[in-house]
């Protein structure tokens, strides 16, 4: 909460020293103590990235400092959002064509010269310093973190490792195994952690930045120093031992075959960890080589797909109060996420017990998301369990997350008539019913749409915004903006059985069950999918989603699609009848009583198994494109990746289809059709992709 008084007073509260207006991307000035301030304020954007231009101009400033040495040099950002988000990823494609190594060497040269400057160099970091931004900070003698600052190397998520000196500067600064862990996982170290690891030399409030800079310039801030462990790891043998362990841990989460970058980083460190010069040379070469890998190209594509979805979620939602109907796992987590992101939320249910559970779960989510004590308190204060439905009349958006029958939903909608606020939107979280059919019962059809979240809502970012034939554009736009406001990625799609994600996923799950009926062990089926690069095999996924929900979606797709689908496995029906619903009941196809199963097996895969699982998904994607359910191929890829974790290093199902050949796949489908039945008949849409 910020009122007008504080808003007025906090305007322009970033300490910028004596700097003047920007010349290019940097602003500079020397204060009365002779301290040179270099402030990054990249033109035309609210977020700093370290582009070639930024580096080139920095070189000029550094050269000036070399010839007229200041008392100290300070580097910081003028952007309220944070220090710098990393390298300019949009330039990577061009960079990889133009000889990345040369460009990298120029960058290394500038950072080396900052490091060599014969005066204290101080980096002040507020917000995030990521990737190349973090590397710039590492080239300085001191890092002063403004409370809330964070540091990280997310490069592995792009199929890369740090390339501007991070691979040797961070292990030289802090415990090398901690440094490697940060780089291998891409995880961010927040202020407190950054201080305890030794990344930050001091933590201050923004209002004390100038004083802290002066103290650092005068040598009054103690610099972090490494412990004994770093010395031990300067020996090859010790590093070899640790590297082996890192390799096996990394292989489990990111197999080398699919994700070469972390393995390349371990190699680098093992081979050159004791020789900075060699390491620098090798880092540049390795980074340039990784840029060209399919994995990195595809992961960069995924990053841009994500940006596109984020873009779709911008704008004003006009929603300050959300009322969620149904406090099951879905409704509860939707409510929690909205409350965490600042919405006023009422959560309705006919029973009070699930409301209590939802409050507890919301608290757990706050903890998992590292909210502070007062942030958690405020989020839980904003989330009001509402057994009497008082929120309905005040809500700008009502989200119905009730059981999946038209009858129950119709009754609920009837109860909303004349109670909802003027102009309010009603959205259904249905996954298996037709939005248009439900719209017939909605109080106002134009302000009715699907808002399809995925389980668990707190972890899966994609939301399908399903427009029915009557849904007006403003409603769909507001819903997409609402998704953005609560930290989700909206995909605007049309009403269709299974929408996009479940339409594509269902044949995959169904085929897994057919394979089981054929006698293929579930571990083998799951392994086939894992080896392809899915985060989870289809049998495990079915258990996780809930077998009752799988059955429901499968039945409804079989009824409504004009395409042949696999027979629903009788084993699935029996399991549902017996109450073995998967993860939520502790037993499905797998036993979940000891947590998530890990069905890896080294056994040989039966013939055709991978294509039988994967290709029907691609075929369904082509179908939803042909029928204009999805907007374009990028959207389909993004939806599948951010809803199901679909092998990201392959760039998404449609991208994979193109890589493999859009004429090859229907040919292969026909082959499978001949062997296994008409469910493999290729869609008519393949021809149009050419």
């Amino acid at each position, binding site marked *: *909460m910020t*009122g007008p008084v504080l808003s007025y007073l906090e305007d322009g509260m970033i300490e910028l020293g004596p700097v003047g207006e920007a010349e290019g991307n940097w602003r500079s000035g020397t204060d009365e103590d002779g301290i040179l301030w270099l402030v990054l304020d990249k033109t035309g954007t609210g977020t700093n990235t370290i582009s070639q231009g930024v580096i080139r101009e920095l070189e000029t400033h550094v050269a000036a400092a070399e010839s007229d040495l200041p008392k100290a040099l300070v580097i910081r950002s003028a952007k309220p959002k944070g220090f710098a988000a990393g390298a300019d990823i949009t330039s990577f494609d061009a960079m990889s064509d133009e000889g990345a190594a040369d460009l990298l060497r120029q960058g290394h040269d500038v950072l080396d010269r900052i490091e060599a400057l014969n005066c204290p160099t101080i980096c002040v970091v507020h917000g995030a310093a990521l990737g190349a931004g973090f590397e710039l900070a590492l080239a300085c003698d001191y890092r002063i973190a403004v409370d809330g600052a964070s540091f990280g190397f997310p490069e592995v998520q792009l199929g890369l490792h740090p390339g501007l000196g991070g691979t040797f500067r961070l292990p030289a600064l802090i415990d090398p195994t901690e440094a490697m862990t940060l780089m291998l996982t891409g995880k961010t170290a927040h202020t407190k952690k950054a201080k305890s690891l030794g990344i930050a030399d001091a933590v201050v409030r923004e209002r004390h930045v100038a004083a802290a800079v002066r103290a650092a310039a005068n040598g009054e801030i103690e610099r972090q120093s490494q412990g004994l462990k770093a010395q031990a790891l300067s020996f090859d043998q010790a590093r070899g031992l640790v590297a082996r362990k890192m390799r096996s841990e990394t292989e489990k989460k990111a197999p080398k075959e699919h994700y070469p970058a972390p393995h390349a980083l371990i190699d680098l460190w093992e081979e050159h960890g004791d020789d900075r010069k060699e390491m620098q040379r090798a880092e540049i070469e390795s980074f340039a080589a990784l840029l060209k890998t399919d994995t990195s190209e595809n992961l960069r594509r995924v990053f841009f797909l994500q940006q596109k979805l984020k873009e779709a979620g911008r704008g004003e939602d006009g929603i300050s109060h959300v009322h969620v109907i149904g406090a099951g796992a879905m409704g509860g987590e939707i409510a929690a996420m909205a409350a965490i992101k600042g919405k*006023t939320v*009422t959560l309705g249910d006919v029973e*009070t*017990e699930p*409301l*209590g*559970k939802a*409050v*507890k*779960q919301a*608290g757990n989510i706050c903890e998992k998301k590292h909210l502070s004590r007062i942030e958690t*308190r*405020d989020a*839980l*204060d*904003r989330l*009001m*369990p*509402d*057994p*009497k439905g*008082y*929120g309905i*009349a*005040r809500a700008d958006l009502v989200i119905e997350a009730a059981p999946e029958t038209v009858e129950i939903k119709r009754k609920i909608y009837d109860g909303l008539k004349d109670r909802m606020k003027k102009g309010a939107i009603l959205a259904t979280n249905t996954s298996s019913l037709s939005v248009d059919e439900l719209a017939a019962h909605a109080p106002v059809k134009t302000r009715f749409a699907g808002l399809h979240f995925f389980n668990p809502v707190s972890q899966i970012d994609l939301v399908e915004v399903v427009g029915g034939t009557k849904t007006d554009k403003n409603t769909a736009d507001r819903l997409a903006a609402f998704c953005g406001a609560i930290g989700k990625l909206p995909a605007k799609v049309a009403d269709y059985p299974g929408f996009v994600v479940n339409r594509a996923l269902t044949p995959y799950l169904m085929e897994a069950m057919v394979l089981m009926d054929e006698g293929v062990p579930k571990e083998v089926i799951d392994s086939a999918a894992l080896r392809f690069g899915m985060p989870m095999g289809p049998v495990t996924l079915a258990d996780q989603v809930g077998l009752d929900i799988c059955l429901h979606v499968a039945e409804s797709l079989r009824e409504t699609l004009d395409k042949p689908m696999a027979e629903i496995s009788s084993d699935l029906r029996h399991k549902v009848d017996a109450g073995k619903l998967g993860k939520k009941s502790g037993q499905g196809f797998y036993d979940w009583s000891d947590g998530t199963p890990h069905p890896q097996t080294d056994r040989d895969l039966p013939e055709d198994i991978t294509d039988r699982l994967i290709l029907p998904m691609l075929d369904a994607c082509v179908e939803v494109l042909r029928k204009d359910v999805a907007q374009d191929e990028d959207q389909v890829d993004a939806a599948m990746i951010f809803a199901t974790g679909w092998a990201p290093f392959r760039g998404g199902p449609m991208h994979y289809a193109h890589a493999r050949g859009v004429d090859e796949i229907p040919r292969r489908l026909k082959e499978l059709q001949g062997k296994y039945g008409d469910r493999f008949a290729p869609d008519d849409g393949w021809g149009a992709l050419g």
Partner: protein
Amino acid sequence: MTDVKEQRVFLVDGARTPFLKAQGKPGPFTPVDLAVQAGRPLLARQTFDKAAFDLVILGCVNVIADEMNPARVAALRLGLPETTVAFSVQINCGSGMQSIDTAYRYIRSGSHQMILAGGAEALSHAPLTLRQSAVEWFGRLNNAKGPMAQAKMLTGIKPEFFKPVVGLERGLTDPITELSMGQTAEVLAHRFGIDRRTADAYAMESHHRLATAQEDGTLDNEVMPAFARDGTVYEHDDGVRPDSDMEGLAKPKPVFEPPYGKVTAGNSSQITDGASWCILASEQAVEEHGLTPIAEIKDSEWAGLDPAVMGLGPVLCSTPLAKRNGLGVEDVDLWELNEAFAAQVLACLAAWNDEGFCREVLGLDGAFGRIDRDRLNVDGGAISLGHPVGTSGNRIVLHLANAMKQRGAKRGIATECIGGGLGGAMLLEAV
């Protein structure tokens, strides 16, 4: 100051948490947590915006260190604008009524239009404090220079330093007379001849009435479920014993003055946590926002008397209130007289029916009269549902308004005794 015409004041709506019996350890909610639990649904069911309130007042006796000025903390946590002024009031057991009375007088004067007035108390959170002698000793230890001096100080340590003072126990002891509240009830029981059996019978009836009210939905609009962070849902006042009987009530020994006393844990109010809010609005605000009041607040009165007989507070303040408004005992359809102790409630009734007392002490011509039990605490009281001290006064005014509406009663008085020798009363009229 311009001359402002006095405004009529209405009680528009109100809600409270269930009252939760202290279980010998801090309960799931702090005073402000409770105020938030009660306030959220109350505000959610209004048609007007939260910004319509021009003041928040909250009564709270045992303010915890993390929540200084709990009214302000509660207002902000309830999402009221930062521009809304909020203050807390404390007059011991009358705090929750003091907030309503202050709001009533502010609105009546014309300076305010709509006020959120509440009470919040978490007696289970009442602090343990160090003895004064121990505090002084710790201070001297801190000032001792050098290890020798400190070692010497350590020899002065006394076992009693580590016996913490139970804040609650001290809070329920009158500082002037050093009588505990229970003892003041013993004084009244003795003076008005209330025997143990009569007190127990009164207590049993209190439980039965509350149980019925919980059962038949009487409290549905008044008591809002509270949701703890661990997922537990508290739906009802949990101190109620629907099967309370004379045999059971005869068992507990007198707690305050054993072995001959009459006041037991069974016929006293319970130590509980709870919060309650009322929305007060001027006639103008009622019209502007299209509100439907439950009752009109007509008048209020406070009185003081000897702390040793604080239990007669209701008699001392309600009598002039009735007299000023020309009301005899028959004119008041419903009474909420806070049940601090069964003996104390019965003593009030006895005093009103005592010609000598009424003439000599109250200045009436004769006895005020007998208050019918059917008009008194009709849905139970603090003996069955508990007495979170800063909240009870708010609850009885709110419940009086609701009970009047449910029964079609024309007039009612809510009144309470206040530790330290005070009494407060409010007169409500049907709209």
